[in-house]
């Protein structure tokens, strides 16, 4: 007998190991070395979360009670997997092209990005998951109980309910730490997948070890097992055709619709080719898991005292034979099965709850909707954490209410049938363009309610949620509404009865309502995109006109994707359009891609709703659809080459237009420059002339003389400074500047600049936000010049920031071989039209008097940065004026590379 304390310690060590594996996998993935983390083997092993504690403990119990029927649960998924070419391949392709985040997202996205459907599927999935999670709690609790019963001392817990509470609490903490560390734009969890792959190996090894021990250790090989089967109570095979067909069907449906299976099979899939490996490897895994079930069952029935729980044979058989270590391994296998299921199921459900319930609610409640700035990611993560805790709490409540005594397989089947209600809407959605959202919503609701009434509620037992009277006589004595004998059909097995009525009425409602309703434009487009996912035709677009401001979209995207990723995406899009900077043109194509990107983080319905708030009036209409259709016909007539060429031409034209605009602006500026420079030179000259004439007067009092001389002195200094700047600029522009390269700490440079700039408008109180630890980055460059740029930016902020309580944020970080420093103030920023002019000479946005300079500052900054091998750019969408300075850590390398070009 293994002492109970050691058992708990082993569990904790095992969990610690899982953490290490997950952590290491995430570290590898972060460094971009995905490699074997995403191999077909890992994918197949991750699918094994289909085998939960139900398989590990329950299958033996199932076999001991009803013989070979347990095989239906594994033959169903086998049929789906070997038929991968038909359904799974399509699902995975759709999942990737639409960036689907969960099964609720799939259904909602297919039927016009309707959030109502997302909510319905989420509710079904959460309710159906409760018995399943209760099953895991029950099996872990029972297995703890096996070890605790012999040892009254130590940490043995007083009763099962308390153990289950501890287990539920531990699993909650574990899942939150595991699954919600970060918000991944693709909803891919490398660490989690790696950990469940490891758990898959542990449970397979454990079950095989027990099986081998039973067949060759206790019995005498396969022939002895065959003899024992003949002698056992399950020698005859009481095959019930209805249950055989029904259970095979339900388990085949469940492998497609269980939220956790969808998560690992579709969402976490990184390569479609992995599916073809899994098509035979996963059935093989299932076969190995069920190979020794019957031997363990018959040997357990024969060897163990009558009345022992057959669900625990895997554990009690080795214990009865005195194999403590084997029992320990079996215990770990069961523990693995339960934890991996709970982790993935909770993550999948939490994603659904946060994307389809919390986010839409928050969007509609918040003032300004998606337009209000702010980081949404914290909210999403917090709502996921709370959802995980809530899902596990529901499982625990089910466990307590149902008394924790039912056979494991019976509980699992209730959950299977619950999620199978999603099947008609899913299959109809990917194969039938005529399926409509109204039909799907109605079918799902009807199926869900019938399942709830005929199977879920009665599962709490008599005196549970449905009284014994309702079960026997129907509500209000209406005979044909009895939960387990609807419409007077009696004598059917309760599971089969629920299966028959729920799925048939579900399908009937779905199909008949679909036939008589008319889908909206978005729905029709999504239907086309889903059903014809393998056609290469890009299809119609969801937005007919752009209309939204790129800067607003960037600000919103930053809140969801994170600043760096959003900026990267916008920059890449702008580049693809042939534009520089961070703001692409808001073409329908761009908006479509942005929406997909956002959908990967918050689900398609929420992403669509968020974009819709910006692109008001730009959503596609039925007329647009027809127009697109005829347009598409015309386009087909052109050869692809012509199309590519015209695109190229359009891009060039766009670049030319941009260059032309800039030239026009420059010519205007040139004129302005001349008048500006004349003005700049003339004003001090005028006053110098005037005052020197006054000074000629010999009668002037001494103090007046002194004063006027001072004025002349000041004006000459101003003149000199202007001329210095001009000279500096011309030297920099001609690349003749001598750089004085030194090693310095970026932190010191920034501090120096802030100090030096503090005498610009010293009367203003400025709040400065700096992240000191992040600033300590060594740079090898001309430090004086760099400081000059920093001083200019800081004093610009001091001069122009028009906020009542001015604040300046300085962010510094190193990315690859480059150092990036952002200067962001909280003023009103620079209007879009002026953003590309500010780096030109004499470009001043406000009047001269206020600026007090010649408008050469930023032009000099830009030239300095070019000389240092770096860049300076205006960063839009930061809620104020923002400048990004970027330079190489080592200056020489970049310059040499530039020189080589």
């Amino acid at each position, binding site marked *: 007998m293994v002492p109970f304390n050691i058992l708990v310690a082993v569990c904790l060590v095992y969990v610690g190991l899982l953490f290490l594996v997950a952590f290491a996998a995430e570290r590898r993935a972060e460094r971009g070395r995905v490699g074997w983390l995403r191999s077909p083997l890992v994918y197949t092993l991750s699918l094994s979360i289909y085998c939960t504690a139900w398989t590990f403990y329950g299958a033996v119990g199932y076999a001991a009670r009803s*013989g*070979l029927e347990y*095989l239906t649960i594994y*033959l169903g998924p*086998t*049929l*789906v*997997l*070997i*038929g*991968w*070419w*038909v359904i799974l*391949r399509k699902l995975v*392709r759709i999942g990737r092209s639409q960036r689907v985040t969960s099964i609720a997202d799939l259904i909602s996205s297919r039927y016009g990005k309707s959030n109502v459907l997302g909510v319905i599927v989420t509710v079904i999935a959460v309710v159906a998951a409760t018995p399943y999670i209760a099953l895991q709690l029950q099996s872990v609790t029972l297995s703890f109980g096996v070890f605790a019963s012999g040892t009254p001392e130590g940490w043995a817990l007083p009763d099962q309910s308390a153990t289950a509470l501890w287990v539920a609490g531990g699993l909650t903490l574990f899942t939150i730490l595991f699954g919600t560390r970060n918000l991944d734009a693709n909803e891919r969890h490398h660490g989690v997948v790696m950990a469940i792959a490891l758990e898959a190996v542990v449970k397979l090894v454990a079950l095989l070890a027990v099986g081998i021990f039973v067949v060759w250790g206790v019995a005498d090989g396969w022939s002895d097992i*065959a003899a024992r*089967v*003949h002698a056992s109570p*399950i*020698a*005859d*095979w*009481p*095959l*019930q*055709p209805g249950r*055989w*067909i029904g259970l*095979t069907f339900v388990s085949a449906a469940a492998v497609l619709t269980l939220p956790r299976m969808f998560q690992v099979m579709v969402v976490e899939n990184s390569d*479609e*080719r992995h599916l*073809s*490996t899994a*098509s*035979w490897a996963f*059935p*093989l895994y299932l*076969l190995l898991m069920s*190979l020794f079930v*019957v031997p363990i069952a018959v040997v357990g029935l024969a060897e163990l005292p009558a009345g022992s729980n057959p669900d625990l044979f895997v554990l009690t058989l080795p214990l009865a034979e005195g194999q403590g270590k084997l029992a320990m391994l079996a215990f770990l296998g069961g523990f693995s099965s339960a934890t991996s299921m709970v982790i993935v199921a909770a993550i999948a459900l939490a994603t659904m709850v946060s994307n389809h319930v919390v986010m839409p609610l928050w969007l509609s409640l918040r003032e300004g909707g998606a337009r209000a700035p702010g980081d949404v990611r914290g909210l999403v993560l917090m709502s996921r954490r709370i959802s995980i805790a809530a899902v596990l709490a529901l499982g625990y409540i089910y466990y307590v209410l149902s008394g924790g005594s039912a056979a494991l397989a019976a509980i699992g089947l209730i959950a299977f049938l619950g999620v199978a209600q999603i099947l008609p809407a899913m299959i109809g959605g990917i194969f039938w363009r005529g399926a409509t959202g109204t039909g799907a919503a109605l079918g799902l609701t009807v199926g869900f309610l019938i399942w709830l009434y005929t199977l879920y509620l009665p599962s709490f037992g008599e005196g549970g949620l449905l009284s014994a009277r309702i079960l026997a006589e129907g509500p209000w004595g209406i005979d044909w509404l009895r939960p387990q004998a609807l419409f007077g059909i009696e004598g059917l097995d309760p599971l089969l009865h629920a299966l028959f009525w729920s799925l048939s009425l579900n399908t009937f409602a779905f199909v008949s309502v679909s036939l008589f309703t008319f889908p909206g434009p978005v729905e029709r487009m999504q239907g086309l995109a889903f059903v014809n996912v*393998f*056609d*290469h*035709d890009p299809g119609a677009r969801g937005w007919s006109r752009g209309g939204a401001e790129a800067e607003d979209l960037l600000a919103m995207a930053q809140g969801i994707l994170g600043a760096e990723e959003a900026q990267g995406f916008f920059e890449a899009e702008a580049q693809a359009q042939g534009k520089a900077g961070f703001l692409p043109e808001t073409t329908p194509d761009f908006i479509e891609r942005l929406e997909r990107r956002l959908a990967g983080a918050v689900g398609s319905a929420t992403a669509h709703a968020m974009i819709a708030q910006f692109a008001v009036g730009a959503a596609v209409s039925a007329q647009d659809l027809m127009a697109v259709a005829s347009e598409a016909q015309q386009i*087909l007539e052109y050869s692809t080459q012509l199309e590519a060429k015209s695109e190229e031409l359009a891009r060039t034209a766009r670049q030319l237009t941009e260059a032309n605009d800039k030239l026009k602006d420059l010519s205007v500026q040139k004129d302005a420059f001349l008048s500006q420079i004349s003005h700049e030179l003339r004003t001090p000259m005028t006053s110098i002339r005037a005052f020197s004439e006054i000074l000629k007067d010999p009668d002037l009092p001494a103090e007046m003389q002194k004063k006027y001389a001072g004025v002349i002195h000041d004006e000459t200094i101003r003149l000199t400074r202007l001329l210095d700047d001009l000279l500096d600029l011309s030297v920099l522009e001609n690349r003749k500047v001598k750089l004085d390269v030194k090693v310095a700490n970026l932190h010191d440079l920034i501090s120096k600049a802030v100090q030096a700039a503090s005498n610009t408008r010293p009367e203003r109180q400025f709040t400065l936000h700096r992240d000191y630890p992040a600033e300590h980055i060594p740079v090898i460059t001309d430090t004086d010049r760099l400081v000059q740029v920093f001083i200019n930016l800081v004093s610009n902020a001091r001069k122009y920031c028009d906020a009542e309580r001015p604040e300046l944020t300085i962010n510094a970080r190193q990315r690859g071989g480059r150092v990036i420093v952002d200067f962001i103030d909280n003023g009103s920023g620079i209007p879009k039209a002026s953003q590309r002019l500010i780096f030109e000479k004499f470009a001043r946005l406000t009047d001269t008097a206020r600026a007090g300079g010649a408008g050469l500052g930023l032009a000099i900054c830009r030239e300095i940065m070019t000389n240092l091998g770096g860049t300076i750019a205006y960063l839009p969408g930061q809620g104020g004026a923002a400048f990004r300075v970027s330079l190489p850590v080592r200056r020489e390398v970049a310059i040499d590379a530039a020189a080589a070009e």
Partner: protein
Amino acid sequence: MPLKQPRFLARQSYRRRRMADAARLLPLLGVFLVLLPILWRPAESAEADTAVGGVYLFTVWIVLIVAALFLSRLLSAPHTQDTSGDEEPR
């Protein structure tokens, strides 16, 4: 859509399409074999048939796995030229 498609395919592409057909039909064969024991009516027969039934089901299972392995190898092999616009993954 009036895309130009060849009416007859080269030998290799032809084979490949038939293998895709086989992959579509394999689950039907599987359903047939798995549901076959219903016709034996093991519940009504007198002899003990759990052992025989178990051997039968596991044999069917292994056959299906081997067939799926065979098909997945054929279908995921990189194919040289197939511009027919069939729903092949690229």
